[in-house]
């Protein structure tokens, strides 16, 4: 499975152009000139805008709820529910200064960064060994790692809970830092294997002849060339950690140790009819770090997503 043919996708093209680079090079517009404007309006812009509006509406709604005053939230008759003229930051204030929210945010960040770094280190070594050292059985190990990618957390959390308990990690961030890599390593190993394959082998041969060890080759030649791949893997792993729910729900008990997704579901959901404002403010504040990260690294993100599927 490791030596699957890979058709490299021009990832910039995925985001910035419609036709493959072939079309861009000869400055042709493809066949779109054959379609009239009204026709394009109905067949292209109308369905596209409906889908985009549906995809983005929950975020608008989340943001709007987070800044609406309480009385407007529940009174749909006297106030237009789709807009508010008196935004308030009360919900955010309550979130940041009257709850454990900053701590949960810190926990999530801490767990995500540590787990991601551990996984990337392990995956870089594993991917390099599989692709370039080609030791005996490398292909089989690559296949097994791919299979590990397909093992979902939902069937592992029960036995893992007992394992975590045996190792004395229960209710500590270490439980998550050590278990998240099982989700991240298979994914990032496959992603990095794809990147390492694109680095010319001749560079390494030169270094070997000059007397470099495998370790030096990895650190000084392969890694600097694989930086885009490393960024993609890092961002995607970070997002996966932030998104992870079932392990955090099972392995953590005390309120102060929880991560944002678990804490919001368990601690904010009470009988209070006015909870919606702070609930949505919490959801928004928990999503923002990822959205900002995404905004800066869209291309890397897309390459990680498509890369893992393509390789």
């Amino acid at each position, binding site marked *: *499975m490791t030596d*699957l*043919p*890979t058709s490299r996708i021009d990832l910039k093209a995925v*985001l*910035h152009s*419609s*036709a*493959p680079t*072939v079309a861009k090079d000869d400055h042709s517009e*493809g*066949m779109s000139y054959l379609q009239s404007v009204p026709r394009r309006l109905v067949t*292209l*812009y109308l369905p596209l805008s409906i*889908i985009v509006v*549906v995809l983005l509406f*929950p*975020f608008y709604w989340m943001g709007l709820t987070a800044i609406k005053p309480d009385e407007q*939230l529940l009174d*749909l008759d006297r106030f237009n529910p789709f807009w508010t003229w008196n935004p308030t930051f009360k919900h955010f204030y309550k979130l940041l200064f009257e709850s454990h929210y900053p701590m949960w945010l810190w926990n999530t960040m801490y767990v995500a960064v540590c787990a991601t770094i*551990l996984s990337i280190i392990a995956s870089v*070594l*594993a991917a*390099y060994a599989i692709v370039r*050292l080609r*030791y005996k059985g490398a292909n089989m190990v690559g296949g097994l*790692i791919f299979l*590990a990618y397909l*093992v*979902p*957390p*939902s*069937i*592992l*959390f*029960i*036995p893992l*809970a*007992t394992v975590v308990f045996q190792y004395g990690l229960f209710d500590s961030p270490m439980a998550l830092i*050590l*278990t998240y890599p*099982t989700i991240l*390593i298979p994914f990032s190993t496959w992603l990095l294997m794809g990147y390492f394959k694109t680095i010319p082998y001749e560079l390494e041969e030169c270094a070997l002849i000059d007397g470099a060890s495998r370790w030096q080759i990895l650190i000084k030649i392969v890694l600097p060339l694989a930086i885009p791949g490393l960024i993609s893997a890092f961002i995607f792993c970070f*997002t996966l950690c932030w998104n992870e*729910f*079932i392990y955090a729900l*099972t392995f953590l008990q005390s309120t102060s140790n929880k991560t944002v*997704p678990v804490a919001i*579901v368990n601690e904010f959901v009470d009988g209070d009819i006015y909870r*919606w404002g702070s*609930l*949505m403010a919490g959801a928004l504040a928990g*999503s923002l770090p990822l*959205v900002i990260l*995404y905004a800066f690294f*869209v291309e890397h*993100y*897309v390459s990680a*997503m498509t890369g893992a*599927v393509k390789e």
Partner: protein
Amino acid sequence: MADIAIAPRRAKTEIREATAWDQLKHNRNWVGFWFMVPALAFLIFFLAYPLGLGIWLSFTDTRIGRVGAFVGTENYEWLWDDAIFWLSVFNTLLYTFVASAIKFGIGLYLALLLNENMPFKAMLRALVLIPFIVPTVLSALAFWWIFDSQFSIISWSLKQMGLITENINFLGDTTWARICVIFANIWRGVPFVAITLLAGLQTVSPSLYEAAILDGATSWQRFRFITYPLLTPIIAVVMTFSVLFTFTDFQLIWAMTRGGPVNATHLMATLSYQRAIIAGQLGEGAAIASAMIPFLLAAIMVSWFGLQRRKWQQGENND
């Protein structure tokens, strides 16, 4: 001359005298092994071992805080007669098939739309992916609010339009609750399907379409006989992932309904959490989780054959 003749021979003997340490440092297999150690350690201790342990637990009567004894297939026999378990299997299959099919349809359609030439396309493509970035639980909370029984914006809008008179009890009615969680799952899954299929679409050369147009092919024929066959391999892989992650979904359901109303949205994953962690019956929960494995294996087989077909289409060695 004699020196030159002797020198290489001496060098050879020196190499033969390599110590065990040199072997460990330079032998390809050993170096490979050292490089694999961190990844393998994680995967063996926290993935392979728990996977085996989970299957073992399903044959015991372990509870939280108590080591269980081997009870054979008792857990499975018990589940066989458990109507709630079968309901959760039905829900899981319904959820997976309906959500995956619609995700595929809308995802492919969206990919085709995004592949057109239009203004702001880079920004549009970036926006489309946002539902996939935001943590599932947090967007599920937004849906929970949107589907609220009293203050739902959907009910309000429909009432304003005069289509309904009473609020729809979205998450309290069994049918509506199923529709709502499936909708939320589709909403989250479509961007992934669309963007990965878009990546596949961009590898299709436009000259094929031009040739087809000159031959008088309709737009449906162009899709059916050019786009679809060329996309098949990537569709197989994307849909396997999509089916796999929909089948084992947990967080969306847990945040929106926790399996209710009357177990109508309990998936196998949420049921196993409820039995194992909340009720403390680890053995029974593990049996439910293990019952998912055959389904997952089936999905993996599909993926495998999808990859094989791709190999066959693109030739063996163009790595």
